[in-house]
């Protein structure tokens, strides 16, 4: 195996730092999430490294807890998208016929509506709670996982080892889980990285629009919403989550790119 390239290493380290911070938020954050510790929009100081927010909460602590919420919601939503999308995608590819046709056309239909618009429509009647958000985003994103896993599995389903498994009388479940899934896993995992970033952006956008994570809980989009009025007075508090999101997005992308490249080269593909 070749050495891991430098950008990937940086990506891995930064992404790991984000996940660790999210995991250990209560230990790392200097103050509580909704603890009012100072004046409104205090500038950065030794006590408050990034200053305070619109009602005097420590901004660094808000960002750390916000990252915890955003990353947690995004992880679970991505997992939902993966589980639902891959399950139906592999199922459709293996069964084929009208089941495949029906599922694929339905996914086409859902994808023909912009996902932000569809999410807004659904959330206009649903109670906006974290589980509902996770399900709505996860199911909307599962359409993309469905397409990819179906496309990968259609190629695999006609291979000899799958045929052999079928001929020796293995059930549908075995064929999907033991024969196809392991071979389809690497492109799917790389795609999951991309989806994760997309979900982070999605949930931040919803929160910013006031239809995502509800206050007093912090998340990156919500922090922008809370502090946006300060911008006009030259207070950059609302810009900090942008830095956090961009850093997370770029680092996860670097890792996902590397996974994709490694797996294509393992198969003797273009990058070999």
């Amino acid at each position, binding site marked *: 195996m070749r050495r891991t390239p430098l950008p990937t290493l940086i990506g891995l380290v930064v992404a790991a730092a984000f996940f660790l911070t999210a995991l250990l938020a209560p230990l790392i954050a200097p103050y509580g999430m909704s603890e009012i510790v100072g004046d409104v929009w205090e500038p950065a100081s030794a006590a408050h490294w990034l200053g305070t927010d619109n009602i005097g909460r420590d901004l660094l602590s808000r960002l750390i807890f916000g990252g915890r919420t955003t990353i947690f919601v995004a992880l679970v939503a991505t997992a939902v998208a993966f589980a639902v999308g891959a399950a139906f995608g592999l199922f459709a590819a293996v069964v084929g016929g009208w089941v495949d046709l029906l599922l694929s056309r339905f996914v*086409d*239909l*859902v994808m*023909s*509506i*912009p996902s*932000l*618009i*569809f999410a*807004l*429509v*659904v*959330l*206009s*009647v*649903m*109670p906006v709670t974290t589980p509902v958000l996770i399900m709505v985003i996860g199911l909307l994103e599962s359409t993309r996982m469905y397409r990819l896993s179906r496309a990968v599995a259609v190629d695999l389903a006609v291979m000899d080892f799958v045929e052999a498994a079928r001929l020796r009388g293995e059930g549908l479940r075995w064929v999907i889980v033991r024969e196809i899934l392991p071979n389809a896993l690497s492109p799917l995992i790389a795609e999951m990285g991309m989806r994760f970033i997309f979900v982070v*952006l999605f949930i*931040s*956008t919803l929160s*910013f*629009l*006031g*239809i995502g994570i509800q206050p007093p809980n912090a998340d990156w*989009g919500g922090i*922008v919403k809370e502090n*946006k009025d300060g*911008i*006009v*007075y*030259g207070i*950059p508090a*609302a*810009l900090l*989550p*942008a830095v956090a*999101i*961009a850093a997370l*997005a*770029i680092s996860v*992308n670097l890792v996902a790119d590397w996974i994709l490249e490694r797996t294509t080269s393992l198969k003797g593909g273009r990058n070999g």
Partner: protein
Amino acid sequence: MNASIWTLVAQRILLGLLLIFLSSALIFAGTQLLPGDVAQAILGQSATPEALANLRAELGLNVPVYQRYVSWLVGLLHGDMGTSLTNGQDIATAIGRRLANTLFLAASAAIISVPLAIILGLVSVLYRNRWPDKLISAVTLASISVPEFMLSYILVFYFAVQLGWAPSVAMISPSMSVLERFQAITLPVIVLVMVVLAHMMRMTRAALLNVMQSAYIETAELNGLGRFKVIWRYAMPNAVAPIVNVVMLNMAYLVVGVVVVEVVFVYPGMGQYLVDHVAKRDVPVVQDCGIIFAAVYITLNMLADIFSILANPRLRHPR
């Protein structure tokens, strides 16, 4: 041109219309997902039974779902979009004005971003792997790693507040002159351009590079033609199909991008209208806005398909 290509185009148009029809059903179904009913969700748990009954009657919840869907759809086709729950106004009038504003914003962004994307794509192929190419790649990559609303605030912070070059909100009113309007929408247009530019430019670059590997390009180069002429006269015509396709897809994306940007800049368009009424749980407005956004999006995607059919010479000569 012959019959078969027009058959393909006609098929795409029919498919597009079918998709719009089906997506109206999906959007309608999306607002019926609640286990309870919409009236309860709007008024909350503490609502009095009379208020609930009134709202149910107003929403027409006493008739079966499919009848409500059909009457909504028939109304839409006749331009009757119903009335808003929150202020009792006619939705069609409100949407008409806002749709024009939104299209103005999106069209301005499109007119700037499309030529710019193609020129930048050309430049980065011309200077492949040298600093202009790398600079363009880095900037475009950075601009897609940040969500639209954050990009907007970064621009507002530096250009509107610190430098004072452009207004930080994009209020426009019917009394404003064209020039004043353009000045008001400077920042939102820049944000939208940055959002779609990256993807279009990268795809232009990829499409051109793909063509540049062909043998006939090598022949042209060996004949001593200048690099710019080779790219512009010889590579471009064969790269037009994928470029047009990605341009149309990004125009479709622009339609969704305006939603967020309008909210940031308090721009009186469709997106702001939709988001406002989602928060107020004004279901009729949300349904109408939803289907309009979906219809525009599907239409632009359909146009992308049609363009790529028309631009593909292989389809003009059936085997």
